[in-house]
């Protein structure tokens, strides 16, 4: 038996436990995997609303005269296009073009930038930003320990968010604002990780419980909201073709290999990793993240081996049962030239080869 550190818990742990959540370990955090049923929670987000505790995620403020310079240098997407109150999805890259993290960057002024980072990469990201801040007039401040975060997602989210912040109702997609909620400084953005409309609220630990309870009260009474766990968060994001850091992308895989070429703005004068991406753009990527769907019943899992014409062709990075498609789905890195949609594959599940076919990504897009 190995001795491990006690799990980290979010400020919402107690009220979630009381409401019957089941918990799971996620990178050292004890987080709810489901409240009622993963299928019901998934369906609630696709058709009504769901509320997720994502307090394990990190937040970093980059401020000062050279804040934009640091954000630009460390991000493949172009922050210079953002006006105050606008946000973008981006990849921070290393010198090899590998992805240090995938993040959401929000501009709150020429010298005030807010970056939401993944839980498992938070320390690495903060160190990476601090390293590249050398010589610049900029402050990098990791506020993750002070802040909780919830994601309100689904077509009814816009009817519910006003109960905690009336101004947020008018936010455009990928826009953000700063507001005082219950006397504390908070950030709200119209972003998410489910393929649906929605908002994310970042609030100090002291008030995140009130945010959660207010949204639950408003949402469950009239708008079909369910509290949701990591289980449905994973099925929702995978259907929507959204990447999971550590599974689908990491320091060894580039933005282009992940099929996210739109994120890398090669017209930008410079950013770390740019030369590698330019080279790949010219020569072609050696591998590409490719979607597959099982043709027969079964549930593929991350780590399952993929076969093409009887030969091993890769390993599933993310995979699950898709409640929307009612079929097993997954993504793997196919060697170039990556197969076109409709290519026959097999996935090895519990020692049996199950027929599958390549499909375009994303698996699901709201029409």
């Amino acid at each position, binding site marked *: 038996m190995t001795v491990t550190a006690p799990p980290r818990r979010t400020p919402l742990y107690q009220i979630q436990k009381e409401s019957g959540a089941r918990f799971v370990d996620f990178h050292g955090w004890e987080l709810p995997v*489901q409240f009622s*049923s*993963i299928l019901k929670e998934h369906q609630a987000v696709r058709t009504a609303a769901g509320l997720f505790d994502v307090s394990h995620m990190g937040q970093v403020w980059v401020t000062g005269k050279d804040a934009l310079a640091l954000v630009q240098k460390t991000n493949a997407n172009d922050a210079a296009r953002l006006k105050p109150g606008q946000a973008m999805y981006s990849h921070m890259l290393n010198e090899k073009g590998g992805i240090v993290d995938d993040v959401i960057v929000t501009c709150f002024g020429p010298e005030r930038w807010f970056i939401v980072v993944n839980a498992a990469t938070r320390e690495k990201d903060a160190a990476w930003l601090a390293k590249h801040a050398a010589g610049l007039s900029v402050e990098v401040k990791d506020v993750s320990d002070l802040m909780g975060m919830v994601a309100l997602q689904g077509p009814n989210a816009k009817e519910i968010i006003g109960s905690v912040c009336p101004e947020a109702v008018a936010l455009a997609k990928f826009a953000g604002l700063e507001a005082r909620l219950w006397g504390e400084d908070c950030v709200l953005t119209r972003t998410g990780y489910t393929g649906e409309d929605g908002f994310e609220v970042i609030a100090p630990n002291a008030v995140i419980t009130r945010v959660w309870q207010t949204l639950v009260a408003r949402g469950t009474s009239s708008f079909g909201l369910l509290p949701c766990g990591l*289980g449905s968060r994973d*099925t929702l994001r995978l259907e929507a073709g959204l990447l999971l850091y550590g599974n689908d992308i990491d320091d060894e895989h580039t933005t282009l290999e992940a099929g996210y070429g739109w994120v890398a703005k090669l017209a930008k004068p410079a950013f770390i990793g740019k030369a590698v991406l330019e080279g790949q753009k010219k020569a072609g990527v050696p591998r590409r993240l490719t979607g597959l769907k099982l043709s027969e019943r079964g*549930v593929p899992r991350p780590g399952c081996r993929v076969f093409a014409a009887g030969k091993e062709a890769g390993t599933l990075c993310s995979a699950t*049962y898709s409640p929307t498609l009612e079929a097993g789905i997954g993504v793997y890195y196919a060697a170039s030239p990556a197969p076109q949609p409709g290519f026959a594959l097999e996935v090895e599940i*519990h020692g049996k080869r199950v027929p599958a076919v390549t499909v375009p990504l994303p698996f699901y897009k709201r029409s």
Partner: protein
Amino acid sequence: MPDPKDCRFAKTHEWVFLKDGVAVVGVSDHAQHEISDVVFVDVPKAGRKAAQGEAVAVVESVKAAFDIYAPVAGEVSEANPALAADPAIVNQSPMDKGWFFKLKDVDAAQVAGLMSFAEYEEFLKTAH
């Protein structure tokens, strides 16, 4: 629907209902609750011989896979054909419509050696 009191239970949470020499096997209500949303069941084919405790079926929820063990030795005579189209019946009706398979050539003494419903309920209080 067999009354749970007429069934015997394995520590691995399968129930057995023995009638006319044929053992019907499924998973307990406790087990279906722990597994949660069942989205796929891989059941054994008729003719498969199973030793007691041998993994013979797989249940998949959205999040994980679970092995289902033969609670007693026997030969699979039939698998529940309804599970392919509607695996959720395992959650909705674990002791009736959601049965998994039937075993023939079973040893009644082996069945009797499993837990009674009362013993199983007691077992649930002390084990997981």
